[in-house]
């Protein structure tokens, strides 16, 4: 089961990073995120799974696609990857592989508890109590962060005064 999920998560993610077409990348990532949600569901974290779908598939992907469309560029005229870019890509893959090897080795070297039984049950009510009780402070901070992020995004993306669509900037 987990191998199947791994396939569902990793393959689209890797494909997304390889595609030249941004819309394809975004849609493949959506698939990967949906796979993650499936993983959460399988792990028994129902609430997180739905939140993942709602936030990533429903919202983040939309924003990404919107940004892609707003910054639409003709794919025919995009510069083909030059030598420097290829070099950078190679270096990046090497770095990632190195990091992966180190972490993977560390994981495999660590003795971990064997499989637990059935997935744990965490009702929404419990989760809510947890959030509002022990983590209330963090919740407030997150709320503040979201508000600030929203305001910041609006300020950043808002057209500068005097700029008219279609006119010369």
């Amino acid at each position, binding site marked *: 089961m*987990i*191998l199947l999920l*791994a396939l569902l998560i*990793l393959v689209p*993610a890797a494909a997304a*990073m390889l595609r030249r077409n*941004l819309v394809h*990348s975004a849609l493949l*990532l959506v698939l*990967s995120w949906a796979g*993650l949600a499936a*993983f*959460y569901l399988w*792990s028994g*974290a129902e*609430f*997180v799974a739905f*939140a993942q779908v709602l*936030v*990533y598939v429903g919202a*983040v992907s939309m*924003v*990404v696609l919107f*940004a*892609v469309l*707003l*910054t639409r560029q003709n794919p025919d005229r995009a510069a083909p990857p030059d030598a420097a870019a290829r070099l*950078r*890509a190679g*270096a990046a*893959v090497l770095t*990632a*592989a190195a*990091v*992966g090897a180190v*972490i*993977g080795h560390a*994981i*495999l070297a660590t003795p*971990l*508890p064997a*499989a*637990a039984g059935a*997935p*744990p049950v*965490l009702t929404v009510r419990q*989760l809510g109590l*947890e*959030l509002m009780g022990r983590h209330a402070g*963090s919740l407030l901070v*997150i709320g503040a*962060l*979201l508000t600030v*992020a929203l305001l*910041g*995004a609006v300020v*950043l*993306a808002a*057209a*500068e005064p005097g700029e008219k669509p279609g006119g010369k900037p």
Partner: protein
Amino acid sequence: MSPLHLCLLLSTGLFCIGLAGALSRSNAILVLLGIELMLNAANLNFIAFWRYGPAPSAGAGVVFVIFTIAVAAAEAAVGLALVIALHRHRRNLRLPEATRLKG
């Protein structure tokens, strides 16, 4: 190899894909997406440890994931707003050319 090992390896794989993407691509949006993937890998770890960890009934892992998702959403919003602002100023999204802070 326990399921937890598998989960962690899966998360490592996801993290590396995100890392490679973020480092290799020059398009700002793709870099952002790579970072999102890395965040997701972290989330996966939280859930895996919560699931197979010693005290699953304590919801700390899940709570953390919820927080991370919120942070990731905020990050995506701000990041993409930056992308749009970048596009507005420079009309392209190639990060290597976006070296000056002042437009």
